[in-house]
């Protein structure tokens, strides 16, 4: 009668549930997207719409906007689960919490960052980026945004028990975002000046794999701590 649950089952159940929840609240999916677009819109308004200037700083603008959008949405990663008690449910399973945490982060990335990937080319065109550079931008976003979610997860878990975690979250997270921002924007810079980008991209891949293997551990530890 007793049927045990496999790790793979649990892993996919966590992702599926979060996707289903996102679907139930689909009106909220637009929020990070709208934020991303609006931040980008502010730059030409502040700097003036000179084409050569915009073209040069477009990758930086898009990346900073993606970073801020990720920071804004990451706050919700564990909040609802913490408030309604499902976090306890997730801890009290036979499976390692860090793996389930990874599933949560992947779900969150699919919900909040993947839509940005689709709209980023459009933004690039509005800022007069060239088509092949937009391709590089997409690649860096694809490799970089999961890292942002993974690192952000640690800080969210650490500030979960705090009532006013918002500003603190930004202070904790942004310094840790620096390397990925540097590698991503320098990859695009290299592409724009006609240099090889494979070095930058392999660096980003390395960081991504490092983040996938390492970040769930402190996140899980911090989550358990927040339940005390």
């Amino acid at each position, binding site marked *: 009668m007793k049927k045990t649950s496999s790790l793979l089952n649990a892993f996919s159940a966590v992702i599926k549930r979060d996707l289903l929840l996102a679907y139930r609240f689909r009106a909220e999916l637009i929020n990070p997207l709208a934020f991303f677009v609006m931040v980008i819109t502010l730059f030409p308004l502040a700097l003036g719409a000179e084409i050569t200037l915009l073209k040069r700083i477009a990758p930086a603008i898009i990346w900073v906007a993606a970073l801020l959008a990720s920071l804004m949405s990451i706050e919700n990663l564990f909040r609802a689960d913490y408030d309604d*008690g*499902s976090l306890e449910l997730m801890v*009290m399973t*036979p499976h390692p919490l860090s793996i389930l945490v990874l599933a949560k982060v992947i779900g969150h990335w699919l919900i909040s960052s993947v839509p940005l990937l689709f709209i980023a080319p459009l933004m690039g065109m509005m800022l007069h980026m060239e088509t092949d550079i937009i391709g590089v931008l997409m690649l860096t976003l694809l490799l970089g945004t999961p890292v942002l979610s993974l690192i952000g997860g640690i800080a969210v878990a650490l500030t979960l028990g705090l009532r006013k975690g918002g500003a603190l979250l930004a202070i904790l997270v942004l310094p840790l975002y620096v390397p990925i921002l540097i590698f991503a924007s320098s990859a695009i810079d290299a592409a724009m000046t006609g240099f090889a980008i494979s070095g930058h991209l392999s660096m980003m891949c390395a960081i991504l794999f490092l983040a996938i293997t390492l970040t769930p551990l402190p996140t899980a530890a911090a989550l358990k701590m927040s339940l005390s």
Partner: protein
Amino acid sequence: MTHLNKLEAYQLSCVRDDRILFNELNFTLTSGQVLLIEGANGAGKTSLLRILTGFRRAESGHLLWNEELIENSVHFYEDAAYIGHNNGLKVALTAQENLRYAQALSSTTLTIDDAMAKVGLAGYQDTLVRLLSAGQQRRLALARLLCTHKPLWILDEPFTSLDRASIKLFEQFIETHANQGGLVIMTSHHETQLPHTLMQKIHL
């Protein structure tokens, strides 16, 4: 449930905000027993439950689940379930979706339909949890305990927001669970009707 389970606490103490909530607490709970934790508000009931679930570390002392320290035991979280003040339900999902998720994370015993029928929620499978009353949500949380394989139940005020009939139902399941070899640890303000032969009490 064939083999015996045992939870042992040695010399537990808990300090919160420089106040000693309890000191040198010892108990042993074996299969078939219910532990009722009593005490006034702020006496440390919830803190004790948090320690027993392993979420909070005791200031001193240790806890053994089947002779293994719970923080090292691979089986403790497989065997233990906790219902706190919140039910751990997603209100935007249906009752069935909630239970299916719980079953995917832990071992399954009953089918979802059977468990829901047992707690008197048959026919509510596809209802969003948001539309259930507070008492029904509590019962759904109970159904979650029934449909997953969890010998050890740790319940924080399980009877809140339940009417008298539901309390009776809840107590029945606690009793059956104990009779089948389960273990229950609970706090409660209410007088419980559970048979005294099963019960241990700790007054904080």
